[in-house]
């Protein structure tokens, strides 16, 4: 059925994914496609931005008719800042990973939300570096053990907490297998004026190893893949997995089993949570951290605050569309100016 722009859902698709079958990131791409189709997003105005990582590859897999920019690792926020400042009419949808955002790009992430750059910022959070084959990330669980890299003794960073503290105006968390919730949050995020952060737990089917898992590293070893960085996942390295899904109610807590047999616990926020309260959002996130569960839903929302372009008092016309006479003052202006230097 065509949407308001007369486009079909397939029009919003991108190139076929080259991620591992069952990768949580692919579910998210699918939800982005559905959201864009449902909301009749004009694709020529959408820009898809990302850093580097498996997650950051995904802009190739949705909305093929939109301009995309696959930047350098962790530095997508500055690209987003520049592009949306240059052209205020663009709708920026960005995808990043937990390594991309939580480590190398942490500074840019914090400064992006502080500036309230208008955009949707999706973190596909698998608690691991997928593309470089399974190192700990800053969001890996404390106490998690990986065969090769040993025990993670460092506390994990909660990117939603960081976003709220950094001044973000829209902060949500979800799970890639919860299509309904992901979509709802994406729709809300696209409608938000300001930076909308959605941290989506997105299992890595290949490297999310439990200590006794015999499915990933050992499997890789058998195939004699040397343990240095690859920017692709070799064929045969991955066993086909089913996508993990979760369908649950507001207020409900569920355990979800990951591909490696480990479990995560999700709790969906209910009406008892007031997302306008920053204090409450911080409190419940800290509590959830102690209880080792992920709270999903809209955690924090702030009444529209001025976005960067407004802070900079820019013209209503996008800077990229200014007529030439607004780009160069007159000869008379220069001559007068020169007089003042004489």
């Amino acid at each position: 059925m065509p949407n308001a722009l007369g486009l079909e859902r397939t029009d919003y698709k991108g190139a076929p994914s080259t991620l591992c079958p069952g990768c949580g990131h692919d579910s998210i791409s699918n939800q982005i496609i559905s959201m864009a189709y449902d909301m009749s997003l004009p694709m020529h105005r959408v820009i898809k931005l990302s850093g580097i990582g498996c997650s950051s590859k995904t802009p190739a897999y949705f909305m093929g008719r939109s301009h995309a920019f696959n930047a350098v690792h962790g530095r997508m926020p500055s690209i987003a800042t520049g592009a949306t400042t240059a052209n205020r009419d663009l709708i920026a949808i960005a995808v990043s990973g937990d390594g991309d955002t939580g480590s190398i790009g942490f500074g840019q992430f914090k400064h992006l939300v502080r500036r309230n750059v208008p955009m949707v910022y999706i973190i596909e959070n698998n608690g691991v570096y997928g593309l470089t084959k399974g190192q700990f990330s800053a969001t890996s669980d404390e106490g998690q053990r990986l065969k090769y890299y040993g025990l993670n003794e460092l506390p994990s960073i909660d990117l939603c907490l960081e976003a709220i503290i950094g001044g973000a105006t829209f902060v949500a968390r979800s799970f890639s297998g919860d299509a309904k919730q992901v979509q709802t949050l994406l729709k809300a995020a696209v409608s938000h004026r300001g930076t909308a952060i959605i941290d989506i737990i997105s299992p890595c089917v290949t490297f999310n190893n439990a200590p006794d898992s015999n499915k990933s590293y050992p499997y890789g070893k058998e195939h004699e893949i040397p343990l240095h960085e690859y920017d692709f996942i070799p064929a045969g390295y991955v066993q086909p997995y089913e996508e993990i899904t979760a369908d649950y109610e507001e207020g409900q807590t569920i355990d979800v089993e990951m591909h490696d047999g480990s479990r995560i616990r999700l709790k969906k926020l209910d009406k008892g949570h007031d997302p306008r309260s920053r204090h409450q959002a911080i409190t419940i996130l800290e509590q959830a951290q102690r209880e080792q569960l992920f709270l999903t839903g809209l955690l924090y929302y702030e009444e529209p605050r001025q976005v960067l372009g407004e802070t900079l008092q820019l013209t209503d016309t996008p800077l990229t569309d200014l007529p030439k006479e607004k780009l160069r003052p007159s000869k008379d202006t220069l001559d007068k100016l020169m007089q003042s230097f004489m």
Partner: protein
Amino acid sequence: MVVELQTNVQARYNGQSEPVVNDFTLMVATKNGSGSQTSNEVLIRSLFRMGIPVGAKNLFPSNIKGLPTWYSIRASKDGYVARRAVSEIAVAMNELTAAEDIQNLPPGGVCILPKEWKWGQRREDIVYYEVPVKETVAAAAVPADFRDRISNMVYVGVCAQLFSISLDIIRQALLDTFGGKEKPAMMNFGVVERAYNWAAENLEKVDPFRFEPMNETAGKILISGNEAAALGSLFGGMTVAAWYPITPSTSVIDGVLDYRHLRRDPDTGKETVAIVQAEDELAAVGMIIGAGWAGARALTATSGPGISLMAEFVGLAYFAEIPCVIWDITRTGPSTGLPTRTSQGDLLFLYTLSHGDTRHIVLLPASVGECFEFGWRAFDLADTIQTPVFVMSDLDLGMNIWMSDPFAYPEEPIKPGKVLRQEELEAFISEHGEWYRYKDYDSDGIAYRTLPGTDHPRAAYFTRGTGHNEKAAYSERSEDWVNNLIRLHNKFKTASELIPQPVTDYDASKSIGIITYGSNDPAVEEARDLLAADGLETNYLRIRALPLTQDVIDFVLNHKRVYIVENNFDGQMHQILRMEIPQDNRHMVSLALGDTLPMTAQWIQAQITRLERQPVQEK
């Protein structure tokens, strides 16, 4: 005792010399942050108003308050503005450096110092003028808060009296300096006048130095390179500036802030230039790349440490072919180096910045006029060639004030380059049956780009730093990789025809050539005159941009000996020339100074004279 010594010196001058008019350097030594910037500016503006060619060098510390700073003002009836290593007159206002400042004076030099120091007059071969600084200020009934800063006006008054600058001129210069504000100008003037009168009554002039009005500055302007760069950028249609503060580049963006009102939309009062202070240089360059990709004319200004941080991102912009402009106001490196000393040490780094096979366009302005011109031209080049364009200025050019002809209005309209907006894209596709982002349709290496927001179903493409084919699709095929690099190479060749061409003074009868670039130009010009006066005639070529052009290569090959004069330690342009000129180039001689100070004519002259007169054994 005092009088006796002065008489000695007077005797020397009486016996020896004519008055020295408009051909000497006056150096003021003060403490950083003491407010001497204003008084020095008043002096230089006064000379400028008298029609005397002037050059200024501010040698300041990396410090906010307290460390020594030296400001030298060169008056030159012949119009030379390069630094001179020697100053004939020292205004020693910093007790910590005074001994050295006095020591450095040439015989016959002049020292002006505060009387209250009670230093005495130890050197017999110079003239001392001791001035009651504190008393003069106290008598001027200045509000207590201003006393310290305004005390610098005492030396202005004394110098005016001793070296013949009229009070009227000083008053005008004060008004210029204070942007026409009467009140502060006149408060300062009160102190100047008092000091002037005191000097007239109490000092006996025994030195030969004097300023006399000329007519060499009429219609000229005084401006710093960084301010000129800011103006050039504003006239070049810049719409986004992102930056992170670093000496000596900060005043580029300060200039943009000062003059962005020229571009404010008169109808709405809103800005057409976005100025974003980034969290670091990684972000600053990312922002301008994002903006350039979206179709803005975007700029950042930085110095060496910032360039180091930008390296990765610049490689992406080069490979994904995104226009942006990066000003590097160089300072002395490696590392933090000397943040307030000048150098041309970033040249090689800029030329091939980032990993892998990269080459960049580097513009090399030599004057404030070129800072303005390259300010707007850099955007046209970046957009036309679709690549980052560096402009390498330096601390000397950027932060000092220079005399110049008024800047010429850009003679060419803004050139957006090969951008296909909606209708152009439609026309392009109906002509070619296709449009691919990285396909070389015109055989000049430059492809056509579209901007995000273009309302056309085929406008979109995928921008990436990973390997790609001409359709902008990810590709690991080696043919795709190689073809892309070949096209980038061809694009670079096209670029060499579009960049500012060298300025040459060539005469086939001369066998010695000098090549330089950037802010060394005034020193080289002066050195050529000195050499010629000594019988060594030289040709001259000033490189204004990289990549090198055929003219440069021809110039090198057409001489028996070519000196490459530059202000870095390693002789970086010399290295580039050796790399790019396949023919026998052993007749190139590197004259690389890199002593943290602006180039002097005397150094160049000494080097070339030595090598020409006692040639090293030919290999």
